[in-house]
C-alpha cells in the first residue's frame, strides 16, 4: 500500500462527491413580444424583459433527478421584480417528491426570499431588470420539532428516504418573474 492507492481513494471520493453531484439548470423562457414596438422579436431582446401585474404569481415545477449521495440542494435564481409601484416581491421555493406520475408529498417546507432583505424592489415602476439571488452553501440546523412553514433562505433538504428519487422544486414568485433557476447538490466534503 502507499500513496498511489491513497490517491486512487481520493480520486474516487472526488468523483462521488464533487464531479457527479446532481444538478439541474433551468433557463425559463418568457414572452418576447415587444410591448412598445408591438412586434414578436423572437428572442430575449434585453436583460430582464418581461412584465407581471401587481399581485400575480409565476409558478414553476422543476424536476430534480437527485443522486443517492444528494442531501442539500443549493439554488440560484435569476429574477426580475415587478415594475409596478409599491410591491414587495417574494419567491417561495419548496421541495416535493414525485410519486405515481404526479407531484406528491412536500418533503421540505421550503424557503422564502423576501424584499428588501433578499430581493430587489423597483422604486419608480420603470423597469423589471434581471437580478440574482442564492441560498448560500451552508446546511441548516432544523429545530428539534422540525418546521411547519418556510424559513429564511437556506439550501433545501432531501430526507434520506428520498435521496436518489425524482423530485420537484416548486418555485413560486409573487410580484416577480423568473428567468432561470439553477439547482445543484452542495459539496459538503467526503467521508
Amino acid at each position: 500500500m502507499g500513496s498511489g492507492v491513497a490517491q486512487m481513494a481520493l480520486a474516487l471520493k472526488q468523483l462521488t462527491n464533487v464531479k457527479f453531484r446532481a444538478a439541474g439548470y433551468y433557463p425559463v423562457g418568457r414572452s418576447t413580444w415587444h410591448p412598445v414596438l408591438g412586434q414578436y422579436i423572437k428572442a430575449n431582446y434585453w436583460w430582464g424583459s418581461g412584465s407581471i401585474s401587481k399581485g400575480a404569481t409565476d409558478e414553476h415545477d422543476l424536476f430534480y433527478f437527485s443522486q443517492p449521495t444528494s442531501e442539500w440542494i443549493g439554488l440560484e435564481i435569476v429574477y426580475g421584480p415587478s415594475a409596478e409601484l409599491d410591491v414587495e416581491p417574494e419567491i417561495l421555493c419548496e421541495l416535493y417528491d414525485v410519486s405515481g406520475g404526479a407531484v406528491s408529498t412536500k418533503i421540505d417546507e421550503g424557503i422564502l426570499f423576501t424584499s428588501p432583505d433578499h430581493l430587489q424592489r423597483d422604486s419608480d415602476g420603470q423597469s423589471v431588470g434581471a437580478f440574482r439571488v442564492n441560498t448560500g452553501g451552508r446546511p441548516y440546523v432544523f429545530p428539534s420539532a422540525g418546521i411547519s412553514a418556510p424559513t429564511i433562505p437556506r439550501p433545501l433538504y432531501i430526507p434520506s428516504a428520498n435521496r436518489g428519487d425524482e423530485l420537484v422544486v416548486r418555485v413560486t414568485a409573487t410580484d416577480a418573474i423568473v428567468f432561470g433557476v439553477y439547482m445543484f447538490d452542495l459539496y459538503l466534503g467526503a467521508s
Partner: protein
Amino acid sequence: MSNSFTSPPTLGSELTVVAGQPITEGAISAMSETANYLWAVGGSHNCLSQAWAEGQCTQKGTAYQLMLSYRIPTISNDHYDFHMHFIALGPGCIRSTLTLGASSYTSETCSTGAGPHVIEQSVVVTSASTATYATLDIEVKHTTGTPNHHELRCVAGRWVAKTSPVDTGARYLGTTDEFIPFGINRVGNDNALSARWGVDMLRNIETLRRRPISYLSWSGVDNLLAAPTGPTDPAPALYLGLGDIFSLQVPVHIPQEVVEQGSYTIHLHAYLVDVVGSIEFDFMGDRVSFSANGWQTAEIEIQVEADDDLSRLLDLNIYRIGPENTFDNTEVLIDAGTVPWTAAKIQSLSIWGV
C-alpha cells in the same frame, strides 16, 4: 464473480491505504464497489432542463410540429434508457425522437388533463451504440378538448442509472474510454492484491473523469401554429438573444486544476440558421466561428475567471457557462433594434464539459 456495488457507496478512506497500514479493513473492496457504482450511477442526473412561463411553449395545431431540439451527451454505451419528465397542460401528445448516429428511437405520450400535470416518457435505445451524443427532437400536437392547446411548462431528462451488478467484460464510453468493472469477490481481505487491480483502477478513474456533465440545454420554440399578434398570444423565444447573456450564465463547478492544465474541454453544440459566410459568438472567453447552418459543434477551453463570490459560498471553483457579455455578442445576438433580424441566429444551444 459479480461486479456488484452498494448505493450510496461506502467510500474507502485514503488514510488507511498509505504505506505501513495493514490490508485488513476493506478499503480495497470499498474502492472497487465505488468504482462500479460510479460507472452505473455517476452522471445520471439532469442532462436536459428547460422551463417556460405560462402560455409560451404552446401548440394549437392538431398535427405534430417539431418544437424543440437538443443535443444530449451520452454517459456510457451501457446507459440505454433516456427518461423524460414534462409538466404539460391541456389535451395533446408529445413525440420524442432520440437519434444516435444513424439510428433513431421514438416514444409518444398523450394526455388529456386540462391543468398542469406530469408526463413521464422513456426513449429506449435498443441497438448498441458508440455515439457520444444524441440529438433529441420533441414534437407536440393538440388533440380535441379544452383548453384549445397543448402546452409544455417544463422538460427534464436523464439517462437512467444502471442497477447492480455492472455487466461483465470491458465497458465503454464511445470506442476508446474503457472501464473494467471489479469482481467484488476477488478484492476481499483474503485475496491477493494484484498489480492488475491498480492498473484497472487508474484506467477506470481516467474514464470516469472523462464522462460528460451537462451544463446547459436551451432550445428555441419553433413552429407555433400562428405568429403572435398581441401581448397575450404565445411569443416564446425562437433564437438566442441579447437578454440571454445575463440569464444563461449557468454556475457550474470545474476543478481549477484541469482549467490550469488545459485538460478540460467544453463541448458546445449549436443549431444555426440563416448563416451566410460565417458568424462569430463569444463563449467563456473563446470566440467561436460558425460557417454553416444546422447543428454545428465546437470544443473550447474555458478562459474566464471563476466566480469568486459563488466559489467562496459553495467551497468549489464555480465558473459561468454561457454566452459572454462582450461587444461582439451584443452585436450578433438579437435585440429589438432590428426587426426582423435577418443575420445568422442560434436556435438551439447545448453545452457540456468533458
